[in-house]
């Protein structure tokens, strides 16, 4: 038989059953974790550090 929240003295607020609430929290946590992991995995390095000098082709004296 259906019992209303007010009849139970809960002031009209509706509470999800504990297993459902835990499940929702787990799904939310997994989702957030997955999102953060995907971002960390795929994002770039945030730019290339500067350097001095450069590349010089090997020739003549280098190859004797």
């Amino acid at each position: 038989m259906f019992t209303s929240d007010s009849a139970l003295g809960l002031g009209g607020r509706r509470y999800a059953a504990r297993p459902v609430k835990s499940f929702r929290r787990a799904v939310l946590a997994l989702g957030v974790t997955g999102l953060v992991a995907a971002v960390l995995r795929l994002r770039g390095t945030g730019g290339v550090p500067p350097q001095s000098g450069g590349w010089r082709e090997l020739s003549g004296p280098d190859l004797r």
Partner: protein
Amino acid sequence: MRVAVLGAGAVGARVAQQVAASPEVDEVVVADTDGGRAEAVCRSVGAQARAVDPRGPWSEGADVAVLAFDAGRHVGPATRLVEAGVSVVSTSSAIGDVRALLALDAAAAGRGLAVAVGASMAPGLSCVLAAHAAARFDVVHEIHVARMGTGGPACARQHHHALHHDALEWRDGEWLERRGGAGRELSWFPDPVGARDCYQAALPDALLLLQRFPEATRISGRLAATRRDRFTMGVPMLRRPHPEGRVGAVRVEVRGQRDGASETAVYGAIDRPAAAAGTVAAVVAVWLSTGRIDARGAGGLAALVDPVPFLSELARRGVKAAVFEGAPVT
């Protein structure tokens, strides 16, 4: 002198062309399971080249045979070639192939033959650059190789495989297995390739370099990869690989001591990976058959060739190495 080439793909075609361009070579025999492709390569090479069936005695009469087909399947043909008295040049970059080919050392040496292992851009040119850089030091402590780009479809498949499998790193006297696709490092390749993110991958460079530099405390290899490469590395390739990749690069950083001081040397090269690999394999094949490489047994190029004349010959054929002169700004 006769050189046999097994595989008429992007690398095999370059090997045949480069070998035929060597005055010491009288005949190039090209074998491929796709007879039409072998014929096409031979037409492009000229009268010196002849297509043969790989199911027959394709290497008969050859002084040297070059294996230029899919990595991971070089051991069987190489073993049969050594038993038949033919020196072998393998372009494979698969760790399994490299390990097994190095194990042919005693068999090859006993017959007075050589098995050149990993004769391509990386490994291959990377090993020669490491040997060249090491000549600047009294003691070599660390060697770090990075590679970017792919040659033909077989190379693209190997790139995909390497990124998804464990990397081998030599550290303080033992092999460590590192997770492929992880361990990002920014590597500076010669211009115009520039800086690329590189990751641990199943590359055989460390195996080959340890043979030449047993005193080194760290040897590692990394592979440049895009976000899409990493995102899809865990699943089969979703589309057919390109016929040939664009420009690629190799970078070798060697750290050691000279006159009591710690120093770092960085060498590199850029080229189409298939073109560079084909040229490296061809020069090794020609030098083996003419006796310019007189080493016997199985080994990587760092152990087999004298780096200065080898790099000079590569430069003459259009594969030019470079040295980095400068330092990161901190």
